[in-house]
């Protein structure tokens, strides 16, 4: 007997409760990544050499080391400096940091695609750099890159099982505990796999819709440009 439906119904409520933690971690991590990514992208565009090089070095470093080690680093090393974080917070920060550096590349593409004339016009109108960014550049730079950011949201969602390594009770950890209690790993792990597959297929379909919508509206944004 490979597949026991009774057991499936028995564990489904527990897994659904755990999926709430997974989704929380995804959303919190992504909010952090989205904000941090924008900050890193703007720092990287800075005219001051050492700021942009530091930001670029930071992004390259984060992007070329495994997120699991970063999770361990924040969870195990930060306490040595007196910063003790609960497992969930450490995990969310690590995921946010890792995907923030990916997102910064996406933002950078968006920012660099804003025509130079927009900057020149802002200078001509005597707008401060802050106002220029907030009211002129960001509103034009962000919408075209929203689908790419969405892809990273899905990628971050698929990385949340890593939090099981620092004992956050998310889906994967719950499935492993259920498996070790009953010695039946087939159902819990397959259900978790199915959950991720369905969620990411739905999200991918949603992003495609969004992309089509943005393509239609951005072609002619109210006759402007």
């Amino acid at each position, binding site marked *: 007997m490979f597949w026991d439906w009774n057991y499936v119904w028995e564990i489904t409520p527990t897994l659904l409760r755990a999926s709430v933690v997974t989704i929380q971690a995804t959303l919190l991590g992504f909010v952090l990544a989205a904000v941090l990514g924008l900050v890193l992208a703007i720092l990287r565009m800075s005219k001051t050499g050492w700021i942009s090089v530091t930001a670029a070095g930071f992004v390259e470093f984060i992007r070329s080391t*495994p997120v699991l080690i970063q999770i361990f680093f924040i969870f195990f090393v930060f306490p040595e400096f007196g910063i003790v974080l609960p497992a969930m917070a450490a995990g969310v920060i690590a995921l946010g940091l890792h995907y923030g550096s990916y997102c910064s590349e996406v933002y950078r593409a968006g920012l660099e695609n804003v025509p130079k004339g927009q900057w020149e016009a802002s200078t001509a109108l005597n707008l401060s750099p802050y106002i220029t960014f907030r009211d002129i550049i960001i509103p034009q730079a962000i919408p075209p890159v929203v689908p790419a950011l969405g892809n990273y949201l899905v990628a971050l969602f698929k990385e949340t099982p890593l939090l099981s390594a620092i004992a956050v009770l998310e889906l994967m950890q719950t499935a492993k505990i259920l498996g070790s209690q009953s010695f039946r790993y087939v159902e819990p792990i397959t259900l978790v796999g199915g959950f*991720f597959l369905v969620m990411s297929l739905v999200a991918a379909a949603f992003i495609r819709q969004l992309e089509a919508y943005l393509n239609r509206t951005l072609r002619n944004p109210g006759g402007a440009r």
Partner: protein
Amino acid sequence: MQLRPLAVCAIVFFTAGLAVSSFAGFREFIPGLLQGAAITIQITIGGCLLAVVMALIAAMAKMYGPLPLRWLAVAYIEVFRGTSALVQLFWLFFVLPHFGVNLDPMTVAITALGLNVGAYGAEVVRGAVNAVARGQWEASVALNMPRALALRRIILPQAFVAMIPPWGNLFIELLKATALVSLITISDLTFKAQQMNQTTFRTIEIFTIVLVVYLALSVLITVGMRTLETFAARGIARGR
């Protein structure tokens, strides 16, 4: 284009590594961590080879295969891109034995990571093949080449050049994903680090060294792929 920040970064961390190396007791960690790094490298190489093979097969099946084969390839790509690498690893490790398939952890690691990255790679291959100019196909037809021959002699060699940079990214993804295999009892770099951390509590040194080792490995992949790209592009330019 990104070589400069990378170089800066490498230099900064090389000095950081030197600074770390002056820490007392540094010598006790290095041999163990290098053993772990050897396992990490083995899995990376094995996984990359499997990924390239799977990507080529899946892309060819998806583009030119008969219908059932095409569905199979689509299912493979969607399933492996749609679920987490860790879930796939655990599935192969914990679930397959229930079906009577017992693989040793190394095989599981290489298979899971290779299949995972291969699914992403299939899309890379497909994109690169589609990017080859239509005229090349038409010329092959005009020269009365069978499709398989045209694909092998004309299309794939040109697609190969376009594929190299995205494959470089995927190989780095794979290298980073090998950290996951520590969770299925393989004593790779990450596993060794955790083990040492639990016995010595020298957390800062150990995890910093580990980060630097992973960074060095990925810089190695970047440099290797860039060299390959230069050589491959040179061949193509002569062909034109």
